[in-house]
């Protein structure tokens, strides 16, 4: 992922890097806490991806054939000068066929296993592509004439791009990764999903409990963050977004290692949330799917609305209590204050319950593709438009819709 001045439509394109940028990118990529650097050759530049096993299962590599035999050479030279390690990268890339392949991250990590040893002993790293044998050859030229060659087989891959637009997201906030890490540490590691509820001055983080039966047995944890804990907090739409905590934790691990602030772009339930980590040489966008609106309507109509209504209780006695009371009475809106369901259905068909999708096949550079089956879109439009936007009634078509979701446990309701 490289930094460029112009906006990009999708994550697939990039701009030429100056030599300085390249140097910095490589250094950043081979930094102490980053994983192995993998390079991606594009028509105009080189993309280096500091990669962490926690996030990605596969890595995309892009090559252009130079010689008729289909092989291309990139030389990544690691030279130590004084105290700073400066890296020089030489490559020549003619315009040509677009080639993509993917490698298991564990294989690449084996090549660059110990960074300390690498820095001491490796003089040159040569990466070659052998298209006939379907493999990438990593040759480490070490001291004393030692040559270590690793042949890694790759697989062809499709390019999947996540479609998202950060600028159109209603809610944005930016925080130091430590703040977010300290927040998720309160939730059990086995927890699947977490819900963020946003208001002008505060953000509530709660564990998401899927069904009724679990609700009476599970510990409900809630954490409230005030706006001044964030570097930037701009909320235009008050709503609740639920997404996968496990993936989120992995992403935070990455963000913490880079030391860069994390920016989150959130929109409506159902739209993906984007986590962005940026500096002068690196831009990472991580896209997570969220639970859709109809899911929330189902929850609220079951009457188990503990998330939304907080009864005033006898916390009156101390300062902390007063604070809690203030929290309770501030606006914590739920789906009932969001757009009426029929309208939402028109504008954005609800994303399918994302548990039905498998992440690994659709990942690209840590992004996920929240694709939706087309027939669901049709259904939601059809049912959504027919009924008036009263909460009671609107639950029915959506419950019928849930029949499509593979792991729905709701009883089917008849549509009127």
């Amino acid at each position: 992922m490289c930094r460029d001045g112009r906006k990009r439509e999708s994550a697939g394109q990039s701009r030429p890097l100056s030599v300085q940028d390249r140097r910095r990118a490589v250094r950043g990529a081979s930094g102490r806490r980053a994983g192995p650097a993998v390079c991606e050759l594009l028509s105009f530049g080189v993309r280096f991806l500091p990669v962490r096993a926690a996030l990605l299962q596969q890595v995309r590599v892009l090559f252009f054939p130079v010689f008729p035999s289909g092989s291309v050479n990139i030389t990544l030279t690691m030279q130590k000068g004084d105290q700073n390690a400066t890296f020089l990268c030489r490559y020549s890339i003619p315009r040509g066929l677009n080639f993509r392949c993917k490698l298991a991250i564990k294989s690449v990590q084996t090549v660059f296993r110990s960074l300390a040893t690498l820095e001491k002993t490796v003089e040159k790293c040569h990466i070659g592509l052998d298209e006939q044998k379907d493999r990438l050859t990593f040759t480490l030229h070490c001291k004393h004439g030692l040559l270590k060659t690793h042949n890694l087989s790759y697989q062809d891959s499709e390019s999947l791009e996540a479609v998202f637009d950060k600028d159109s997201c209603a809610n944005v906030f930016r925080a130091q990764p430590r703040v977010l890490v300290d927040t998720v540490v309160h939730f059990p590691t086995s927890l699947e999903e977490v819900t963020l509820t946003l208001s002008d001055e505060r953000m509530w983080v709660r564990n998401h409990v899927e069904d009724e039966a679990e609700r009476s047995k599970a510990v409900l944890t809630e954490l409230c963050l005030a706006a001044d804990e964030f570097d930037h907090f701009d909320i235009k739409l008050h709503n609740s977004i639920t997404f996968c905590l496990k993936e989120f934790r992995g992403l935070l691990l990455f963000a913490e290692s880079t030391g860069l602030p994390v920016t989150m772009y959130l929109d409506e339930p159902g739209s993906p949330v984007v986590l962005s980590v940026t500096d002068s040489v690196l831009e990472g966008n991580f896209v997570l799917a969220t639970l859709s609106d109809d899911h929330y309507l189902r929850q609220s109509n079951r009457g188990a609305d503990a998330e939304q209504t907080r009864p005033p209780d006898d916390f009156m006695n101390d300062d902390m209590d007063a604070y809690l009371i203030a929290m309770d009475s501030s606006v914590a809106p739920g789906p009932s204050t969001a757009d009426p369901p029929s309208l939402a259905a028109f504008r954005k068909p609800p994303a399918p319950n994302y548990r039905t999708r498998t992440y690994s096949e659709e990942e690209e550079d840590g992004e996920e593709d929240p694709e939706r089956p087309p027939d669901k879109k049709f259904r939601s439009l059809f049912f959504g438009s027919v009924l008036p936007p009263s909460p009671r009634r609107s639950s029915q078509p959506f419950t019928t819709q849930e029949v499509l979701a593979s792991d729905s446990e709701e009883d089917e309701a008849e549509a009127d």
Partner: protein
Amino acid sequence: MKNVPCLLSSGVVTTISKLTKTCVLRLTPDNLFFILSGKVTNGGVGMWCELLQNNFFDEYQMEGVSSEFNQICLEVSPENLSRALRTVQCAKSVKIKLTKKHCACLTVAAELPTLSSASRVVTHDVPVEVIPRRLWQEFKEPVMPDFDVSIYLPPLKMLKNVVDRMKNLSNFLVIEANLNGEMNLKIQTDLVSVSTHFKDLGNPPWGPSQRGDPELLAEATVDIRKLQQFLVGQQVNPTKAMCNIVHQNVVHLILLHEDVSLQYFIPAVA
């Protein structure tokens, strides 16, 4: 609802959570008890853990059902409570309250230190079940059995090591002890028999008076897994650790640590 603001050490609750999945928390004006009554469903294992509320809480307020029955009994999962308390260990202040949300809950509310002006508040609602008064007699303090031998235990870590190894060989363990400070752990299978001997352990002064031969061993055969479960949970070496044996009846283990007392009953198998 009853208010119980406090600063509670989570160590005790973590130990309890290793012993049982669910237990009864009994609150009285002076004490907290974690109770597991020895029912057949637990395999007859019983536990009684007593804490003096004064030592853990800065402030403690409780109101029982009535002034006559001034206590509250709750069924809770100690694992949930322990996890909640663990995450708030570095908090500025912690409060535990009994609340009613979607069901009765022990709400652990903590104020966490932050870099900004406002402090972060985290709440954990641990679901509990209130136990009606008519069932309270099940949770009375167990009567100290008329034991045959009372002896101090060897260091728990050592005991745990021995029991862990023995568990691989057999399901049943014989615990023997006498009033001469000697204790043996024995297992017997078709192929092998192993015994570990401890000497000079000492006997507590309140033990049964010397009758007959102090060398006489009292023994009980117990399910080794129950003993192992008890030992796994002990994270700190207690101030005092004792074992009372009723010959071929029950093994009664007592741990005293600062102001917490933990009693564990393991029935003997036939």
